[in-house]
């Protein structure tokens, strides 16, 4: 990190070796799962559709991701109206 960057408060660029490692980890999770990011997007949309039939969900905040070790993790925050229905 140069002195100028430090004075300007800029973030140092990641070393390219670190970038390589992170990109590889990402791509290999998909390779190993035989899944593409586009398919994951479709899965996300379908999960939203199924769950929305039963409960309100915060649409824009649904996160479906592939984690290390081949785990598909879906985080589905419920919408504001969701709790009211069950009461």
């Amino acid at each position, binding site marked *: 990190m140069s002195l100028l960057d430090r004075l300007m408060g800029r973030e140092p660029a990641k*070393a*390219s*070796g*670190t970038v*390589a*490692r992170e*990109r*590889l*980890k990402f*791509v*290999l999770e998909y*390779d*190993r799962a035989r899944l593409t990011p586009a398919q994951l997007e479709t899965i996300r949309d379908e999960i939203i559709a199924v769950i929305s039939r039963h409960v309100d969900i915060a649409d824009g905040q649904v996160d479906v991701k592939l984690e290390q070790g081949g785990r598909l993790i879906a985080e589905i925050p419920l919408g504001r109206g969701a709790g009211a229905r069950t009461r």
Partner: protein
Amino acid sequence: MIPATPRIITVTSGKGGVGKTTTTANIGVALARRGRRVAVIDADIGLRNLDVVMGLENRVVYNLIHVVRGAVDAERALIRDKRVPGLMMMAADQHSDKDDVSPEEMREVCEALRAHVDYVLIDSPAGIEQGFRNALAPADEVILVTTPEVSSVRDADRVIGLVEAAGKPPPRLILNRVKADLVARGDMMTTEDVLDILRIDLLGVVPDDTAIIAATNRGEPVALGDGGRAGRAFHNIAARLDGEHVDVLPLDNHSGFFGRLSGLFRADGDGR
């Protein structure tokens, strides 16, 4: 220490151009210099590289295809390397095709050699098609060569899956062409990075060494000598294959003050 059973080891990589043939030749030389009888086999049918890398191209009479066709016994197709007692090489045929050999035929050729040597080392062609399957079929063990680059490591990961699917034990890794100065300044993945991603055992780390180029030009594998960074790494790899415990050498770095300075903080590797 003589290996109890002769071992058939396939050297493969997925991606081409990562140094498979040079690695196979040098491990062969290094094992033979330890007193082992070694047959190195060029399984890259249709191309022919191992003989020139080893400097034996002018002595090839019979090749793998002659053996498969039954024209000559496997042992007779081996060219004896006069520089190292116990070292032998079987060439590939340039005028045949990968489909001219089946995995079963490769297995028969290698099994026939078990009676004559301690190690059979198979130099696999690049890729994951027929040629790779032929080279993998006879293997008791697999060595995976990769460089610390994204494309090479990605292909290596795929090969690990295929080796596993073929019912073979997980490959052991040789990380090739590691550039100490780039690692030191963060511009190359470290050995730990690659091991963390691939999750297989490490067999050795070979530093990038321009001596390899000159050696290949002359057809004199670096492991014929005792010096040189890459040469020492190959001797260590041969010792580990033989079951000896040898620590991975510190990465020495002759690329100037910065490299030496950062080397102080990263002294771990056969060059890692």
